[in-house]
């Protein structure tokens, strides 16, 4: 931080970051305020007014959001997809990164480059062919969609895991081999526990992405049967342009709450995990 001679942070920076924080916070504050207002009190001119006696709706919007459109079912689908996808990404990508780091051959180099390349391919480029392929391979259910998420999440996860894996001395694995471990035991009993900080960081990042994702499930899942929470929010927009603003705002608050909690809990590890392997420690 830019500091003046007497140690007080530069006023310019303070103003700049205050404005930036306000810009980030204003949609969340607006949604939170309006989720407690009655439908008629929600408009663009009164978006930032505090709920008053007449406009305060209590938790009725929340009850409506949960009860009317099958919120709990959507929540279960979102949870199922997020948990299976993140678990698969953590397990497969950490193993893949272990192979890439420890086996020095053409295949490992090719896999690494492929993973790095997958990070720069825009989703829009592959989305239509993907939805067709997913239908053919029967990956269009909440139980199978995790395979597609594994493919899209592998790039970043392998990249982060490889960075950390390089900082683990190979002697630790050799010591495990001499102590009596086979390769699987070496991975699960020795390497896996050491990866914990990176696991948490990758886990948090991937959870936020899968939980919030709207486009991929909309394209792949059978929307008549399965709706994730981000998809459900759209269903508060009725026909003829009518929007159930109160329940929609309540639904959005309920959707972002778990992500905020997970981020706050894992925040420390995200920085640690992303920096791991970047510097020699």
């Amino acid at each position, binding site marked *: 931080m830019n500091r003046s001679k007497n140690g007080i942070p530069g006023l310019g920076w303070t103003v700049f970051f205050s404005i930036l924080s306000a810009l980030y916070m204003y949609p969340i504050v607006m949604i939170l305020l309006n989720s407690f207002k009655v439908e008629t009190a929600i408009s663009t001119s009164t978006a930032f007014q505090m709920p008053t006696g007449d406009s305060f709706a209590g938790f009725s919007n929340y009850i409506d959001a949960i009860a009317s459109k099958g919120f709990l079912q959507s929540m279960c689908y979102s949870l199922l997809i997020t948990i299976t996808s993140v678990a698969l990404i953590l397990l497969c990508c950490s193993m893949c990164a272990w192979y890439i780091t420890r086996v020095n051959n053409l295949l490992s180099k090719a896999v690494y480059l492929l993973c790095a390349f997958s990070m720069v391919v825009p989703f829009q480029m592959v989305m239509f062919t993907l939805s067709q392929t997913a239908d053919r391979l029967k990956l269009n259910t909440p139980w199978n969609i995790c395979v597609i998420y594994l493919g899209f999440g592998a790039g970043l996860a392998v990249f982060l895991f490889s960075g950390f894996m390089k900082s683990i*001395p190979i*002697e*630790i694995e*050799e*010591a*495990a*081999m*001499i*102590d*009596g*471990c*086979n390769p699987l*035991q070496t991975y699960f*009993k*020795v390497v896996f*526990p*050491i990866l*914990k900080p990176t696991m948490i960081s990758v886990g948090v990042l991937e959870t936020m992405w899968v939980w919030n994702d709207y486009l991929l499930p909309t394209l792949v899942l059978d929307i008549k049967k399965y709706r994730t929470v981000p998809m459900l929010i759209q269903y508060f927009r009725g026909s003829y342009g009518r929007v159930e603003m109160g329940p929609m705002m309540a639904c959005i608050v309920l959707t972002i709450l778990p992500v905020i909690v997970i981020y706050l809990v894992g925040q420390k590890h995200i920085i640690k995990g992303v920096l791991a392997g970047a510097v020699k420690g």
Partner: protein
Amino acid sequence: MASVTLKNIKKIYPHSGKQKKGEKKTNLQVTDKGVVAVQEFSLNIADREFIVLIGPSGCGKSTTLRMIAGLEEISEGELYIDGQLVNKVPPKDRDIAMVFQSYALYPDKNVYDNLAFSLRLKKMPKEEIDRKVREAAEILDITQYLDRKPKALSGGQRQRVAIGRAIVRNPKVFLMDEPLSNLDAKLRNQMRAEIIKLRQRIDTTFVYVTHDQTEAMTLGDRLVIMRDGFIQQIGTPQEAFEHPANRFVAGFIGSPQMNFFDAELIQQKNGDYAVVLGDATIVLSSGKQARLSTKDVQPQSVILGVRPENIALCEDGGNDGNQARICGTVDVCERMGSAAHLHVKAGGYDVVIVVQTMDKNGPTQADFAMGQSIAFTFSGSVAHVFSKETEKNLEF
């Protein structure tokens, strides 16, 4: 406890993609198959013997140890542990334990779990694991640290844990790869003494790799001195010091390093061998005479080697026939406390002489000034004669 036999072991590292054929970064032999890191390595390690592999960096000592451990594949040759061929046996089934230079402790496990890890893999009963772990901790004096994670330990304590992890397994062969090189000088001396005590307590076969000759001389029953993948000499520390097989061993063992001179080996009228160095003629001792005669060594140009400790300063310029007086000027005087290392310029050579400056009564020697003229001498019994062509000791 077991014997280890290495028969004509060879290790070839295939050419990597980046490395061009014929490119030579070290003195190691490069063949079509790859870089030969170790070759013609044959050694019998007796049961309960402490063998030290020593040599400069890149000589193949760690590679040899890793081949014994099973961490490197053996390209050619045979390796026997306790009479059983183990070339294709995985490390976990060789019944060996290894202590690494970087400790290689499991960072997420506390000291107790680090020590118990291999025993748990063997599915040993809990009570027995506990007994063995506490016994090893007792031996190494780390009982009070059993609950700590490795990051909360000092370097010396971590090294003890690494040794403890090997002890609990009660292995047939104990392998140590430069275990003290990450410690500071004081701790290294302390740990060296600990290893000597440990060896007496656990009494098993040890193979120890180091590039530190003090460790090698103090710990080993026998030394295997290596260079560029080849064994240079196998022998007890005293043998290697007193009768070096070649110029490399003579220069590598001993600190400060042996002095080398270009000289002429002659045979006098009475048949005695002598070495002519400048104006001085040094008649070799009777033992050396006998060995040179037995080998029927002909007069020739040689490399003469004399250890700095075997050179004496002349005070009265005396010459007793077997000794010769060589004059020079003091270039540098390094004071080491109880001794001084004098660097003397004499006849175009930089000669190092160790002068004792202390005895039981206190300081004995005055200071040496830069440029001061001095004369020194040595006897024929301490002169080592090496062939100029092969650099081998002509006595062997």
